[in-house]
C-alpha cells in the first residue's frame, strides 16, 4: 500500500495547479462560510429624519419624562444616514443609496402626550421603503418592527415608572412640584393615621360610624393601590422570557464557525482527492493491471482512503493553526481534534471512494463529488426548526446518511467542551465508514467489470 500511497503523493506533487485548487478552493469556501456564520448581520443603511423638537418631552401627568435618546437608540440598530428633509429621504431610498427612510414627525411627542388626554391621537412615524429586493425589504421591515417594538417598550417602561411614583405619592404622601410650586400631598397612609387618631375622641354614633367607614376605605385603598405599582411595571412587559436549555449547552459561535470551516475543508479535500485518485486509476488504465494480483480491491480502496485522510489531516491542521492566530483555540484538546479529523476523514474518504468507483473519469467524478458534497454540507447547517417539521426530518435523514454532519459534530465537540457528544459522533462516523466501505467495494466490482 505504501508504494501506491507514495505514487499518489508524487502525482499530486506533479500537479501543482490541481493541488492548489484542491486545497485553496475548500479553504476559501470554508473561511467564507465560517465568516458568514460567526458575523452578525450587516446593519441596513437607513435615511433618518428626526423632526421632533429637541426640547420636546413625553410627559406623564404634569411631569416630563427625561430624554430617552431616540437618535442613539435607532442609530445603534441601523446605519443612520441623517437627512434634512422628507424629500431627501425619499430620494435616497429611490436611488438605492439607503434601504429605507425613517421619519419622526414634529408632532410625534405631542401625539404621544395626547394619549393621556380625553382626545388622544395615535402617534405615527413614517417609513419609506423600496421593495425592489424582497430579501432586503424583509430585512428592513424586520429591523423597523423591532425598533418600533423597542421604542414602545422604552416609553411604556418610563410611563409605568412615573405612574408608580404617583401611586407612591397617593399612598405614602410627599411633595409634588407643579408649575414651579411645591405641593404637599398627604397620602392615604397619613390620612388614615390622622383619622384613626381622631376616632377614640368621638362619641359612639353616626359620626364615629362614618369615621370607621373612612378608615376601612383608606385601608382597602392602600392594600389595593399597593399592588398597582408592580402591575404597572408588568404592564410594560407582561411576558417575561424564562429560557431553559434542554438539549445540552452550545459552543460559542466562533468555535462552531471554526468547526464548520475545518469540516468544509476536510470534506472537500478528502472526498475530491479520494474520488479523483480512484477514478485516475481507471483513466490511466492502471486499474486492471493493479488488481490482477498486485493489489486487492480492498487494499486499493484502503490506500485511497488513507491518502485522503493524510492530506485532509495536513490541510485541516494547517487551517486550524492559521485560524488560531486570530481566534483562541483549546490546544489542550489537540488529541480530540486528531480523533475527529481522522474519523471524519476516514468516513468522508469512504464516501469519496464510493463516488470514485461510480464514475469513469476524473472530471465526472469531481463534478459528482461537488454535486453531492456541497448541498449536503449546506443542508447540514440548517438548524432544526428553521424549516417545517417534515422538511426538517427529511434534512436530518439526508444529512445523517452523509459523513459531513457527524464529522461537523465531531469537530465541534473536539474544538469546544460545550459541543455535542464526541462519542456519539465518532460512532456515527464508524457506522458510515463501514457502510460506505461496503458500497465502495461493491461499486468497484462494477468499476472493474465495465
Amino acid at each position: 500500500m505504501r508504494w501506491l500511497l507514495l505514487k499518489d503523493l508524487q502525482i499530486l506533487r506533479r500537479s501543482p495547479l490541481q493541488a492548489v485548487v484542491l486545497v485553496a478552493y475548500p479553504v476559501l469556501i470554508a473561511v467564507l462560510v465560517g465568516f458568514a456564520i460567526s458575523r452578525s448581520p450587516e446593519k441596513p443603511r437607513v435615511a433618518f429624519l428626526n423632526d421632533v423638537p429637541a426640547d420636546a418631552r413625553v410627559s406623564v401627568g404634569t411631569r416630563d419624562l427625561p430624554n430617552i435618546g431616540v437618535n442613539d437608540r435607532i442609530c445603534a440598530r441601523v446605519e443612520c444616514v441623517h437627512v434634512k428633509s422628507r424629500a431627501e429621504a425619499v430620494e435616497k431610498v429611490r436611488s438605492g443609496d439607503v434601504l429605507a427612510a425613517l421619519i419622526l414627525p414634529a408632532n410625534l411627542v405631542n401625539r404621544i402626550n395626547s394619549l393621556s388626554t380625553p382626545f388622544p391621537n395615535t402617534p405615527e412615524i413614517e417609513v419609506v421603503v423600496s421593495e425592489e429586493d424582497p430579501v432586503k425589504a424583509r430585512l428592513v421591515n424586520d429591523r423597523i418592527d423591532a425598533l418600533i417594538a423597542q421604542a414602545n417598550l422604552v416609553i411604556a417602561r418610563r410611563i409605568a415608572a412615573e405612574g408608580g411614583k404617583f401611586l407612591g405619592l397617593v399612598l405614602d404622601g410627599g411633595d409634588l412640584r407643579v408649575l414651579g410650586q411645591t405641593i404637599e400631598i398627604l397620602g392615604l397612609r397619613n390620612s388614615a393615621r390622622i383619622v384613626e387618631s381622631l376616632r377614640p375622641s368621638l362619641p359612639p354614633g353616626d359620626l364615629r360610624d362614618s369615621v370607621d367607614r373612612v378608615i376601612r376605605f383608606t385601608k382597602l385603598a392602600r392594600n389595593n393601590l399597593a399592588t398597582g405599582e408592580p402591575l404597572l411595571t408588568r404592564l410594560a412587559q407582561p411576558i417575561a422570557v424564562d429560557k431553559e436549555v434542554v438539549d445540552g449547552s452550545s459552543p460559542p459561535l466562533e468555535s462552531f464557525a471554526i468547526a464548520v470551516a475545518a469540516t468544509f475543508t476536510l470534506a472537500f479535500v478528502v472526498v475530491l482527492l479520494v474520488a479523483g485518485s480512484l477514478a485516475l486509476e481507471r483513466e490511466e488504465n492502471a486499474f486492471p493491471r493493479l488488481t490482477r494480483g498486485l493489489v486487492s480491491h480492498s487494499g486499493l480502496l484502503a490506500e485511497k482512503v488513507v491518502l485522503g485522510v493524510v492530506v485532509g489531516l495536513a490541510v485541516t491542521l494547517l487551517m486550524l493553526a492559521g485560524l488560531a492566530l486570530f481566534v483562541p483555540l483549546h490546544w489542550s484538546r489537540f488529541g480530540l481534534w486528531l480523533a475527529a479529523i481522522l474519523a471524519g476523514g476516514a468516513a468522508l474518504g469512504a464516501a469519496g471512494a464510493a463516488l470514485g468507483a461510480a464514475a469513469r473519469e476524473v472530471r465526472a467524478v469531481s463534478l459528482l463529488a461537488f454535486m453531492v458534497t456541497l448541498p449536503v454540507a449546506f443542508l447540514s447547517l440548517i438548524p432544526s426548526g428553521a424549516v417545517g417539521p417534515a422538511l426538517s426530518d427529511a434534512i436530518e435523514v439526508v444529512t445523517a446518511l452523509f459523513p459531513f454532519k457527524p464529522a461537523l459534530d465531531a469537530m465541534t465537540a473536539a474544538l469546544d467542551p460545550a459541543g455535542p457528544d464526541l462519542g456519539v459522533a465518532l460512532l456515527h462516523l464508524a457506522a458510515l465508514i463501514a457502510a460506505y466501505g461496503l458500497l465502495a467495494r461493491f461499486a468497484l466490482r462494477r468499476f472493474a467489470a465495465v
Partner: protein
Amino acid sequence: MTDRAVIEARKLVKRFGEREALKGVDFEAAAGELVAVIGPNGAGKTTLLSILAGISRADGGEVHVPEGEVGWVPQQAALYRRLTVEENLLLFARLEGHADPVASTEEMLELTGLADRRGEAVARLSGGNQQRINIAIGLLARPSVLLLDEPSVGLDPRQRARLWEFVSALAETNGTTVIFSTHDIQEAERYGRRLLVLADGEALFDGSPDGLLEAVRREAPEAADRDFETAFVAFLHHRGH
C-alpha cells in the same frame, strides 16, 4: 492441459447481456510460441485475452494458466503519465515484490532502450515509447506467457518494427510465449508463428499463416492468389462473417 501447452482454454464462453462474445473457444499455446489472434471488430479478441489474463471471468469453459506468470499488456498504455519512465517501472517492480526493484528497473530500461529518457514524464513520450514501457511493465513479472492486446495500434512503421523486433526476441531468445491480438492482417502474417482467427466469438481457424492460405485455397479459391488480407476477408466471407 496437453504436455506442450503452457496456457490453455477449453470451451470458453463469455456473455455481455444477451450478446455472446465467446462461443466455446478452444485455444492453447506452447512455450516460445508467437500466436496472433486476428479477426474483425467485435470478434472476441480482447475478451479472450482478458480472460487469459485473469481480468475477466469466463461464463463457461476452463482456463489453465501458469499461476502468476502471465504478463498482461493492455491495448491502451496502463501507465501513470505524470510519473517518469523510471518511477513507473520502479513502482510496478515494487508492487511485484521484486527483491531488488532498482536492478529490475535498470534491466527494463536497458531492454526498452529508454535508459537515457528515464527521468522524463511518460506523458511526454511518443505513443511508441509509451507502448515499450507498457510492455516492459508487463515483463516485470518475468512471465512465461505474455499477452498483448493490439500492441501496435497508433505506432508509426518505424516504431512498429522496433516493437516487433523486441517482442520476437522475447519469444525466440527467452522462450516466452507471446499471444497478441491485432487488426493488422499483414502484421499477423509477418510476426505470428501461429494464427487464431476469431469472428463473432467463434474460433474459425487455428494454425500457421501458410495453413490459413491453404484453407483459403480450399474454401475461397478465387481469392487464393490475392494478397493475404484479401484472402483473409474472402475466407471470413466464405465462413459467413
